[in-house]
């Protein structure tokens, strides 16, 4: 039933990067999940007589300029970060991987046309694409996720294509071809299982980039709309209070940095595991 895969990799100890990255990501996911059922305070309504309270006391991390509890905002903000990040990666995978596999299997002019199209998309950096999409269809989390996904798709297409080219040169693919197996059969039974490791590595890289981009977009007002809490907008709102209340910028900034750090570590760890060219073999 299952396709012949490459021999199982020599068992190495679980990389420190992989574990610490996974732990950080799990914490962020857990925070987002908890925020669905419980936050210390409701992060949406404003309470004018509790504005700009410092950290400590009843509000552990203080309150913002509208009197909302910063800890609750941070917890709820994790949701939009993950939601936009995961959706963008999904869009990029669904667009990029089939294109890459198709180009790698068909070769010839199909390959040339598809890869030229990938070059064109590559000329539009994801952030720019999102701003343009926001101008055309209105800024929202959905627009951001789709635009970031399209922006990230070229790298998925390129990775899948080069992986496919390698798989297509294997003997079992030649055997399948001489047995008159169609391209679809080869793509789903042989290519996809064998390039999934590369795609997973790419997904973790794209996830980190999407989280950074989502923060930047929310900061610019091109992400999710108020009052949905988001880390990027917390930064934007806190910017006017840098002197008296630097924690309003510090806490969401820390949340973004720690999340991205975790995703990058996870990506490095996955690359060590899945990518044969990784420097961990040294």
């Amino acid at each position, binding site marked *: 039933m299952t396709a012949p895969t490459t021999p199982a990799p020599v068992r190495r100890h679980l990389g420190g990067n992989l574990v610490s990255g996974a732990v950080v990501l799990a914490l962020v996911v857990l925070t987002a999940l908890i925020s669905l059922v419980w936050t210390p305070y409701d992060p949406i309504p404003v309470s004018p007589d509790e504005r700009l309270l410092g950290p400590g006391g009843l509000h552990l991390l203080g309150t913002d300029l509208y009197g909302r509890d910063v800890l609750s905002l941070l917890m709820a903000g994790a949701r939009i970060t993950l939601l936009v990040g995961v959706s963008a990666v999904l869009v990029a995978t669904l667009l990029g991987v089939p294109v890459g596999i198709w180009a790698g299997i068909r070769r010839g002019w199909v390959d040339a046309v598809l890869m030229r199209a990938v070059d064109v998309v590559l000329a539009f*950096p994801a952030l*720019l694409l999102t701003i343009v999409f926001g101008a055309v269809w209105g800024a929202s989390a959905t627009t951001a996720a789709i635009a970031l996904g399209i922006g990230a798709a070229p790298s998925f297409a390129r990775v899948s294509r080069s992986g496919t080219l390698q798989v297509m040169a294997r003997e079992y693919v030649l055997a399948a071809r001489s047995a008159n197996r169609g391209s679809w059969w080869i793509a789903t039974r042989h290519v996809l299982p064998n390039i999934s490791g590369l795609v997973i590595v790419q997904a973790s890289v794209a996830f980190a980039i999407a989280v950074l981009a989502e*923060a930047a977009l929310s900061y610019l007002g091109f992400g999710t709309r108020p009052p949905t809490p988001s880390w990027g907008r917390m930064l934007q709102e806190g*910017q006017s209070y840098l002197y008296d209340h630097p924690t309003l910028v510090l806490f969401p*900034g820390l949340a973004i940095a720690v999340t991205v750090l975790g995703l990058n570590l996870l990506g490095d760890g996955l690359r060590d595991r899945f990518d044969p060219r990784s420097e961990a073999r040294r």
Partner: protein
Amino acid sequence: MAVSLARRLGAFVLTALVASLVVFLLLSVVPGDPAQVALGVTATPEALAAQRAEMGLDRPLVAQYLSWVGGLLQGDFGVSAVTGEPIATELFTRATVTTWLVLSAMVLALAVAVPLGVLAAVRRRRADGVLLSAVSQLGIAVPAFLAGLLLITVFAVRLGWFPAGGWSRPGEGLPSLLWHLALPAVALGLVQGAVISRYVRSAVLDVMGEDFLRTARAKGLTPARALVRHGLRNAAIPVLTISGVQLGVMLVGAVVVERVFVLNGLGSMLLEKVANRDMAAVQGVVMVLVGAVLLINLVVDLLYAVIDPRLREASA
């Protein structure tokens, strides 16, 4: 060499043309009538029709596209529906600011990344090499605009050494320009420097495993001299690639950094025009940014051949 040069230029022109079509189509489907934007909501239907004819909006889409691209090739980006000024003039002024910002950030990034990356590779088994790797990992996780906010907090708000934002006035000379540029360039450059340093590290590690380096050592060169004389040139190719990619990233990252530091560059122009629904101007800015990204890729491609003679032979 000539053939591959021609092929690359051809690919560049083709990609740029398709990209221009995408930009044009994307921003032509925008809901809202540019003539309405120009005249305001009180305009009569007759005045609107006349305005549409004057702006060429009554022509077929193909004709509109062709005249737009034709204009672009002559440096004519059309006229803003909001201000009535030629878009090219504003683009040029704004591009100067962004160019200063991005290039100084790139210089800064490379000045930090190359020495640190080499050091992190050479001393990878020692505490300082490991520490350098860890610091660069941290640096990657901090977005440029966050770095900007932190720099403002410390060096502008607390210490007052640098302005929290704004650009030098004309005629104030280079010192004032650099003084205004310092914090935004550091914000944009340091983060990218962290990214590039990781590629430098891994490129140098790759080279250090090569036979020719062992040969050079066997000839009696010290490890340091062997690396400088033979290694760095070979490590340059992946570093060049990532620098080109990061230059494009910085160009777009500048959009956010300009907002943080209230700089009147292309990025803030883009955001202002989007807010004003001035779509002709948005088209212009997007096209300039996309064109710049494509141009950077082309230059990087051509530089490969200059650095590595093997690639010259292979692609000819």
